[in-house]
């Protein structure tokens, strides 16, 4: 049955997923942003930045328009049972992305790297991005992240050891390079942001897994005790650095830290970082047998 999605129904569901992802901040992120507004010193430019951010969140939702004009790399994470037609799903999704662009939910944001041509469709080689994952459940789950270029540009990958940072191949070394990443990012990634981190893996897998951490809710806790401790420590320590919203100085530098670990080969020890801006656009849906939205995931 799930193999027979109605194309038009699926397309409409995906446009709605894109609209909501682009225009509405997820509840878990909104909650932490409001808490940080409470904590900033009154009358500072850091507080005023967070107030404008709040106004912006409300306005985007009300007007059903993009929270940020950089609607970013369009990343689909699809979990589906065996037999699911990925090719048909991709075709319909590409249509939906182009339709959502015409409606102004996405900016004309995809550029041919060789010719510089932006054909305005948001569809091309590698755009949008799909990550398919097969699971035992009959459910089809589609999650979407829109990741702006400003925050993607401050992402970084370290190969440990790094002598000048005193970063050895252990958790203390990871902590050191991650704090370095926060200081290097300053306000350039539109902080307060969220760090998605992968310890281990090879280079591309490490980056991919670091970005995948951003699918986690901000208020969840890491089931691995040493990673949980590192997440809490890094969040707390980063917020002591005084970088603040937009790099204006202040108490809120990060909203969250999410860390995963992958096996590595003995010769490599990568720590990969995906930085997500405050305009954390992430949503997801479960689709029913016709391709209609059954429920929202965030």
């Amino acid at each position, binding site marked *: 049955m799930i193999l027979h999605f109605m194309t038009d129904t699926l397309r409409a569901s995906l446009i709605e997923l894109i609209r909501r992802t682009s225009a509405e901040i997820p509840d878990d992120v909104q909650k932490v942003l409001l808490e940080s507004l409470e904590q900033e010193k009154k009358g500072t430019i850091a507080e005023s*930045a967070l107030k404008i951010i709040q106004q912006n969140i409300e306005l985007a939702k009300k007007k059903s328009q993009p929270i940020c004009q950089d609607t970013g790399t369009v990343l689909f994470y699809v979990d589906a049972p065996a037999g699911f037609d990925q090719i048909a799903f991709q075709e319909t999704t590409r249509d939906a992305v182009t339709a959502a662009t015409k409606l102004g939910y996405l900016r004309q944001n995809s550029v041919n790297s060789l010719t510089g041509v*932006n054909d305005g469709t948001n569809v091309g080689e590698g755009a949008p991005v799909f990550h398919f994952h097969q699971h035992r459940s009959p459910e089809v789950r589609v999650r979407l992240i829109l990741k702006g270029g400003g925050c993607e540009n401050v992402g970084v990958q370290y190969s440990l050891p790094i002598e000048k940072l005193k970063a050895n191949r252990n958790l203390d070394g990871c902590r050191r390079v991650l704090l370095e990443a926060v200081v290097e990012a300053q306000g*350039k990634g539109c902080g307060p942001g969220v760090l998605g981190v992968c310890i281990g893996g090879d280079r591309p897998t490490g980056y991919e897994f670091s970005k995948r951490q951003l699918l986690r809710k901000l208020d969840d806790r890491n089931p691995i005790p040493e990673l949980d401790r590192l997440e809490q420590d890094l969040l707390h320590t980063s917020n002591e650095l005084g970088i603040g919203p937009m790099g204006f100085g202040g108490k809120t530098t990060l909203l969250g830290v999410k860390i995963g670990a992958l096996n590595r080969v003995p010769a490599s020890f990568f720590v990969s970082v995906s930085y997500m801006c405050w305009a954390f656009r992430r949503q997801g849906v479960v689709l029913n047998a016709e391709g209609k939205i059954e429920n929202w995931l965030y």
Partner: protein
Amino acid sequence: MIHLTSPFTEAQIRSLKVGDAVELSGVVFTGRDAVHTYLHDGGALPPGVSLKNGIIYHCGPVVLKGDDGQWKVVAAGPTTSAREEPYQGQIIKDFGLRGVIGKGGMGERTLQACREYGCVYFHAIGGAAQVLAECITRVRNVYFLKEFGSPEAIWEFEVAKFPVVVTIDAHGNSLHREVLNASREKLARLAG
């Protein structure tokens, strides 16, 4: 809150200090990566565009054409300015800019040009595309739309009470440098 309307005088701009909250009104032109490289390499501004005593806004907006043929700004926050660092100082000098709007700050060469020629860097709130789009009261024109594509084109906007913070002034001060140095010192203490 300080209110300023473009075009600006050098004295107005030199009176601003790092940390000042300002509301800007008047005309601004957008320009980002393609425009900066083009101008830096000796490209000419199209007829109708003048940056003298004015502002360039690092922004790639979402703009739709309505059924009435009028442009409508759907989202228009700042983009990361650091990418324009290799070009900005020269463009401030060559075109007589008094203000640059962007986000994330700029480096030493832009700071030197601001000091020498009387210009400031206005930091807008990154990501605040709706609040800032509300401050754009009219799209007057668009240039290089076909050549550079919509986000990279030069859009001519009228703005009213557009909120920014001065983070690089015309006296050699930079909030970005201050915060970077202070956070580096703190990190050295915290990381051990």
